């Protein structure tokens, strides 16, 4: 499956030097079009049109009721803040997305060695939706003196077999990044679990990582 990348600025999924970027072909020769940092251009001649998402929904780029959107999907390669991107690609489909477009998108990423999970077009997709409230809770527990950061991380590593604890992970990824993601989720969901915690708000206001 040949793909063509249209790109503006740096991509969170594929930072400069990422081998995936080198696989691009000319737009006319591509089966799949990828837009990184650019709004997608509808093109039903392509098997799939993919747009990289950050905190936004795919429906912010295309009308999910539009017949021209049946081959448009969103995607994000999961990345914990400034950590290196993982091998996971969250592929976002709309209610109107055709199965053939999903298959084509999966084929592109799986051929490049990524693991693809398909999810609905909801804020936070799978991982930010699940992880940000947990990190918020851990940061609030820290404020409340439930335990030290080290003991919270040790508990998760020893008790659950996690490779790292929630405090070290969210701190390593950057509290400001966490703030930005969870604030976007909070604005959409409006539930307290997504409200940015004090430590993240403070980091954002002082311009820290």
């Amino acid at each position, binding site marked *: 499956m040949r793909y063509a990348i249209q790109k503006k600025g740096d991509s969170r999924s594929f930072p400069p030097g990422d081998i995936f970027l080198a696989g691009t072909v000319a737009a006319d020769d591509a089966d799949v079009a990828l837009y990184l940092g650019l709004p997608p251009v509808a093109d039903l001649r392509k098997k799939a049109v993919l747009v990289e998402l950050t905190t936004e929904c795919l429906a912010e780029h295309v009308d999910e009721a539009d017949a021209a959107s049946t081959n448009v999907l969103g995607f994000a390669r999961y990345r914990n803040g400034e950590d290196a991107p993982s091998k996971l690609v969250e592929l976002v489909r709309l209610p109107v997305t055709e199965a053939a477009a999903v298959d084509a998108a999966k084929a592109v990423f799986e051929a490049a060695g990524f*693991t693809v*999970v398909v999810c609905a077009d909801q804020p936070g997709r799978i991982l930010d939706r699940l992880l940000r*409230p947990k990190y918020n809770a851990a940061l609030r527990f820290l404020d409340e003196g439930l*335990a030290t950061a080290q003991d919270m991380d*040790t508990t*998760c590593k020893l*008790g659950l077999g*996690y490779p790292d604890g929630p405090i070290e992970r969210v701190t390593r990824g950057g509290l400001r990044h966490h703030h930005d993601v969870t604030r976007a989720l909070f604005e959409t969901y409006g539930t*307290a679990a997504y409200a940015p915690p004090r430590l993240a708000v403070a980091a954002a206001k002082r311009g820290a990582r």
Partner: protein
Amino acid sequence: MSTAIKTVGVCGAAGTMGAGIAIVAARSGFNVVCYDTAEAPLAKTVKQTEGFFQKSVERGKMTEADRDAVLARFERTTDIVRLAACDLVIEAVFENLEVKRNLLAQLAAVCRPDTIFGSNTSTLSITEIASGCPHPERVVGMHFCLPAQLMKLVEMSPGILTSDAVFKAAWDWTLACGQIPVQTQDKPGFILNALLVPFNNDAIRAIEAGVADAKGIDTAIKVGLGYKMGPLELIDLIGLDTQVRLCEAFYPITLDPRAACPPLLRRMVAAGLLGRKSGRGFYTYDGNAMFGA
């Protein structure tokens, strides 16, 4: 790490957690009095414990002589008075406040004035449990993880009235057992369950909301974060009915919406889908093999 504790009592020793704690204590050189209310389950635990140490011998982790020495440290009883000589008694009985309070009242009546009482509760307040004891300063939270004989972590929580000396003595004992204690405040779920129960509920709600299926969610967590197990796989392992009980323990205390039991979870339990133990939960199991539901 030195400790003045020589003899340890375990209440609820016929249960999975109690039996594991007894193994931890005995293999670390402590005499262990295993107490439970019925003979038959205790007898069953004896065989399981012997089997555990026999496997250790077969794997070259201990000699036969060491195995025999460890097994000789166990005493089993259904008579609570036999706990009288214990320096530390750890309760791992049914997760119910009244049951634990009543047990502590009985223990206080038979044990020495300086005996330390540890509670393996994972959800209840240490301070509330200690209120059943005429000596609440002697009660400390000691939450081992399942299976206790394999997991190093112990969440240690002082109640409001727990004395510093008691907490330190219990802490030093866990170190003497080769365990790794972490200190938490006496709050619902301590660290582990306070983070895990709402997280697992969120994963169930993501299914309810149509974000992705169980396999997609678990794959995302495992590949994205390097976890060994996804949240839905974990719920299947611990039991969907157990997750319901955890929700019912946490939500009334915390009123945290994330701790409330997701409707899908209740419906699955009502349908008999309890996870691995029933053969089907978020996944379907055929023996030990796992297939996407």
